[in-house]
């Protein structure tokens, strides 16, 4: 067998591992082994590529792999569980950047460094030249969009809710990028292709910024998922440029899977993808930011007394729980209540937190049994028969305005109907608005009592009082 046949068969093994791995990753029981199969598929792909390269100079490759592996491992080891969304966004940006660099490197070797070449189209062929331009475009958007998404998640950057002339700016930048890309690959000139490529890179980076800057609030997870899909497509485009079927298949599968996941998230928020991408959470509608009246607050001791007497309790976690690292404290409260014979469940809103499934990850870290976590659609009908709801650091996902005020920015978004429970305790630092930046009328309801303070501290106090009640 020739070397090419061996590596082609190995590529098939790699694809099979990716596909089976991804399938297993979408089921709870098999998820971890699925991820490991995908990692094995990647290892096979890298080894076969190195085998195919044969006798070459290894220094740059070994250096790059060593640096990348070191930084990757260090980043993960240092990351906190609450910072996972930011980490995913950053890695995603790096993936997009790598694809764009592959295309630029290919272009540079064929046009600038080859004295005999006239243009990229003649040196590489029309398909490779055109897809190289596409790779730079998608990869650049992925890089700047992901970096900006990470900064916005951290709160380092706060974009304007609306960017005037955004569509026009996008159209101009896209036109500029395509024109520059065209010049880069067809020009018969010494400097014009280089200038074209640099303008293309700059334009693609700016498109990513303009795309993500005005998007905020609960829409951030959708954007990251979409950028994830784009980084897959960038890899697929690089596959076309290099004529490598393994890159095309793996990249396209990620692109399609990312798109489906994006769609699932949009459905969870009752919004269309277009609506999300237009940006400025809520768009034109006026947000109600008036002062709160009739807010009642209490302390952990009183709340514990109410909880002791309850039969059914539902805990609603939000981003505040993750940010305050209160997941273990929440589990302690649940355990104390269960010991008192109270039925306790956790209600999981699909977009609570900063990523879909964020609450599941955080609560799983605290070893809360999977059976106690109930999805919104299945638990919403149970709120009227619930004695006490404890809202921990959630805001927009429990705001009744979504159902009652058609003009509200979050109108139509499915919410957890906590207001229909007999009593609602809201654990929160202050009355500051949530990510959507609007007032939450739940806090003014007669059956709502605020427990102001740090989520972890308040839950610890609650658990302590509940333990005392057992004696």
């Amino acid at each position: 067998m020739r070397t090419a046949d061996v590596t082609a068969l190995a590529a098939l093994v790699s694809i099979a591992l990716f596909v089976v791995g991804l399938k297993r990753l979408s089921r709870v029981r098999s998820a971890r082994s699925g991820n490991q199969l995908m990692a094995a598929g990647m290892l096979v792909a890298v080894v076969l590529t190195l085998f195919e390269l044969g006798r070459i100079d290894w220094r740059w490759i070994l250096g790059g792999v060593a640096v990348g592996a070191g930084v990757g491992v260090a980043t993960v080891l240092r990351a906190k569980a609450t910072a996972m969304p930011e980490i995913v966004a950053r890695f995603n940006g790096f993936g997009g950047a790598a694809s764009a660099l592959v295309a630029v490197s290919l272009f540079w070797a064929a046009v600038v460094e080859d004295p005999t070449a006239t243009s990229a189209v003649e040196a590489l062929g029309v398909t490779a030249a055109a897809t190289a331009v596409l790779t730079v475009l998608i990869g650049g958007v992925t890089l700047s969009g992901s970096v900006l998404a990470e900064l916005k998640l951290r709160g380092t950057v706060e974009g304007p809710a609306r960017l005037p002339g955004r569509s026009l700016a996008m159209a101009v930048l896209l036109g500029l990028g395509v024109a520059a890309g065209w010049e880069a690959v067809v020009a018969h000139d010494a400097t014009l292709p280089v200038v074209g490529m640099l303008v293309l890179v700059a334009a693609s980076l700016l498109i990513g910024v303009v795309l993500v800057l005005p998007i905020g609030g609960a829409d951030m997870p959708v954007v990251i998922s979409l950028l994830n899909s784009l980084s897959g497509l960038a890899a697929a485009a690089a596959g076309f440029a290099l004529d490598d079927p393994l890159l095309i298949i793996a990249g396209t599968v990620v692109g399609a899977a990312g798109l489906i996941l994006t769609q699932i998230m949009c459905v969870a928020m009752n919004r269309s993808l277009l609506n999300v991408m237009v940006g400025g959470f809520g768009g034109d509608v006026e947000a109600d930011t008036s002062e709160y009246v009739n807010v009642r607050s209490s302390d952990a001791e009183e709340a514990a007394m109410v909880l002791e007497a309850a039969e059914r309790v539902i805990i609603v976690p939000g981003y505040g729980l993750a940010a305050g690292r209160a997941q273990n404290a929440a589990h302690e409260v649940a355990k104390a209540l269960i010991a008192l014979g109270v039925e306790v469940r956790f209600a999981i809103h699909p977009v609570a937190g900063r990523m879909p499934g964020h609450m599941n990850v955080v609560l799983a870290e605290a070893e809360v049994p999977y059976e106690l976590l109930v999805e919104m659609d299945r638990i919403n009908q149970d709120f009227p028969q619930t004695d006490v709801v404890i809202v921990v650091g959630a805001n927009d996902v429990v705001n009744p305005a979504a159902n009652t005020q058609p003009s509200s920015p979050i109108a139509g978004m499915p919410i957890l109907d906590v207001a229909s429970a007999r009593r609602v305790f809201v654990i929160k630092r202050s009355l500051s608005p949530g990510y959507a930046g609007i007032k939450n009328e739940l806090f003014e309801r007669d059956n709502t009592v605020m427990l102001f303070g740090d989520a972890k501290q308040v839950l610890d106090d609650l658990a302590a009082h509940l333990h005392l009640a057992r004696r």
Partner: protein
Amino acid sequence: MGPLLVSLYVFVLAGFLGFELINKVPPTLHTPLMSGANAMSGITVIGALTLATVAEPRVSTILGFLAIALATINVVGGFLVTDRMLATFRRRR
């Protein structure tokens, strides 16, 4: 059928495969799935590997080196962070 057409066939079929693979996913797995798929998009590393094969520090080689480093961060970090998330699910059983 020319090579471009074969690539297009592969592209379209892989797209359908991706759609079908994860059409139903419990919300618990949305974040790990996004993270795992993200690591898989680091497959671009195999393209990068073919571009840094000479010792001489040309621009294309340095760009290839950077691409290898960034893609490897994406791959190694991505699979590792996904495994870390999923490990918390397993411990309960």
